[in-house]
């Protein structure tokens, strides 16, 4: 059982929901990322999605676009991001880390070299926004052989036939994109999400994490009620943008955001 599967199983046994924060590696500075990851764990994170910055993040709204620009200004590369995970693992061998990004930096590094380095550093899962399973025939086996979970997206527009096929290619969890839009837009409709996630649950035994549009305790609880976990991204990245100067202040601000979400999710526990 992978680290991701273990954590999600424990949570399920306890009747609890996963809190999965996302931050962009290298933002506001490469030196800050590992410390921020530990803060996220202290504030209640079960899994961390660590964004790999890309020059052309087509699926992201302005908040994460700017985070990528800040990280790239400091030259944050995929190799460095993997190095950050290795550093993080020195003090934390429990919290799963998922690398989330776009395909081209991996292609440039070479898929085999990337998979080796990621597995060696203690990365647990890979989520590539612009890699649907249809194009993953060469890459997916490299991940599977190294016990890296391949996490794919499901969307409101995904038809049943594809939901089944995508779930079959996935391991760890599937990531349900809560609305038709880019990250950071505020247009989540909880009833629609509930209906779709229930439908996805009928088609796969994998846990379903829901992301896009979760910004506070209220939306976290509403979505947590109908899913196995919530992914929180833009609101955290926006907080990083507004507290770049003072790392300690930033850690406090992130904790202030995540704590109420953690409590709201745990209050759902049966």
């Amino acid at each position, binding site marked *: 059982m992978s680290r991701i599967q273990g954590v999600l199983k424990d949570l399920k046994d306890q009747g609890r929901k996963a809190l999965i924060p996302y931050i962009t590696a290298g933002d506001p500075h490469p030196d800050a990322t590992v410390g921020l990851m530990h803060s996220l764990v202290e504030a209640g994170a079960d899994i961390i999605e660590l964004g790999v910055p890309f*020059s052309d993040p087509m*699926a992201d709204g302005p908040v994460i676009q700017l985070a990528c620009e800040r990280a790239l200004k400091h030259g944050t590369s995929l190799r460095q991001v993997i190095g950050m995970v290795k550093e993080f693992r020195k003090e934390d061998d429990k919290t799963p880390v998922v690398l989330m990004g776009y395909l081209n930096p991996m292609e440039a590094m070479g898929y085999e070299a990337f998979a080796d380095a990621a597995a060696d550093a203690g990365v647990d899962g890979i989520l590539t926004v612009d890699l649907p399973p249809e194009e993953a025939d060469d890459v997916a086996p490299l991940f599977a052989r190294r016990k890296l979970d391949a996490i794919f997206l499901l969307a409101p527009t995904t038809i049943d036939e594809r939901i089944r096929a*995508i779930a079959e290619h996935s391991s760890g969890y599937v990531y349900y994109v809560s609305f038709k*839009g880019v990250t950071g837009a505020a247009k989540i409709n909880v009833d629609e999400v509930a209906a779709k996630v229930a439908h996805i649950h009928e088609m796969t035994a994998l846990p379903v994490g829901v992301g896009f549009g979760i910004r506070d305790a209220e939306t976290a609880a509403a979505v947590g009620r109908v899913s196995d976990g919530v992914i929180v991204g833009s609101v955290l990245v926006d907080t990083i943008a507004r507290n770049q100067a003072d790392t300690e202040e930033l850690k406090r601000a992130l904790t202030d955001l995540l704590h109420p979400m953690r409590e709201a999710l745990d209050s759902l526990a049966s």
Partner: protein
Amino acid sequence: MSVKLTEEMLSALPDARGHFGAYGGRFVSETLMDSLMTLEKEYLQMKKDPEFQAKFDKDLADYVGRPSPLYFAERLTRETGGAQIWLKREDLNHTGAHKVNNTIGQALLASFLGKKRIIAETGAGQHGVATATVCARLGLECHVFMGAEDVQRQSLNVYRMKLLGAQVHAVESGTRTLKDAMNDAMRDWVSHVDDTFYIIGTVAGPHPYPLLVRDFQSVIGRETRRQALDKTGKLPDALVACVGGGSNAIGMFYPFLGDETVEMYGVEAGGLGIETGQHAAPLCAGRPGVLHGNRTYLMEDENGQIAGTHSVSAGLDYPGVGPEHAWLKDIGRANYVSVTDDEALDGFRMLTRVEGIMPALETAHAVAYGVKKAAEMDKDQMLVINISGRGDKDIHTIAQLDGIEI
């Protein structure tokens, strides 16, 4: 040319998942997959539908003004002293460039699919104008995404789009050019996927776009082939076209791919010179990667971040290229070369002065290389340059380079 491409090979490309050899494909976030698959299914049906084809042909004839002439540039040929130079006059199309061939086709598809809201990206503004034009004609809501830098250097086209009723969105992110316009168009599409049709202007992007844009633009090569046979009794020896994304070039090349004797030259933007790194020539100096939904040659750094590009022409200022060109390069069927900003400007001046035809700065790249190539060829040979667009939109840029206020 040693590569023999049979009908059979050509009709099998792209494959069912949109691949041209190792290139192409469909690399997008999941939200768009359903729309792309629907578009593919509908298009493959309409491609076989005689009624759709008849409507497309009628629009090309009566609205665009096709066929465009194949013109023998007698004086340019004499001055060059080599092969006979012929010009395919896409600049004479309605809206002044080849781009409208494709927007007519895609707008027909959009109407068929019942989509009322159209989005497009544009670099030089020619595709934006061609999209705004068909939207005006069909009464469709039109949003054009354009890099903020291009909005400045192509202000005439921006105003044309506005007159046609389009909303022009200046894109401030990234390098503020064509690639960033395409990013924002994709973001808009994901956010309005139910009611919006994205008219991509070039042969790049996720499958089926490289296929359908190539099909709509192939009218250029089909006409050229017929006209060359009518006028000279033989096929051209060489074809020359500029390549940004590569839609006018693929439109010219595709109908000739099976004709082994016809050489093909795609001309990329060499900017300040390939050796300076300040250019937009991924086929000449890039490597394969994934951007904007397809695998193709890209300009990128060693970490896979997309590199900034430079060209005097906004329409060529793009770090990627259509996947079919990437494949044609690898199999050696087409040759890809580059000319610098300065050479392109010389090409612009030469065609203007010698033939009274003012080409777009994008097209001027093809002119510059075509003249150079023709000079190396025999007098009884025939070379066709695709005059993909007219140069009115670039007058300000030329004047500025000449230090003249207009």
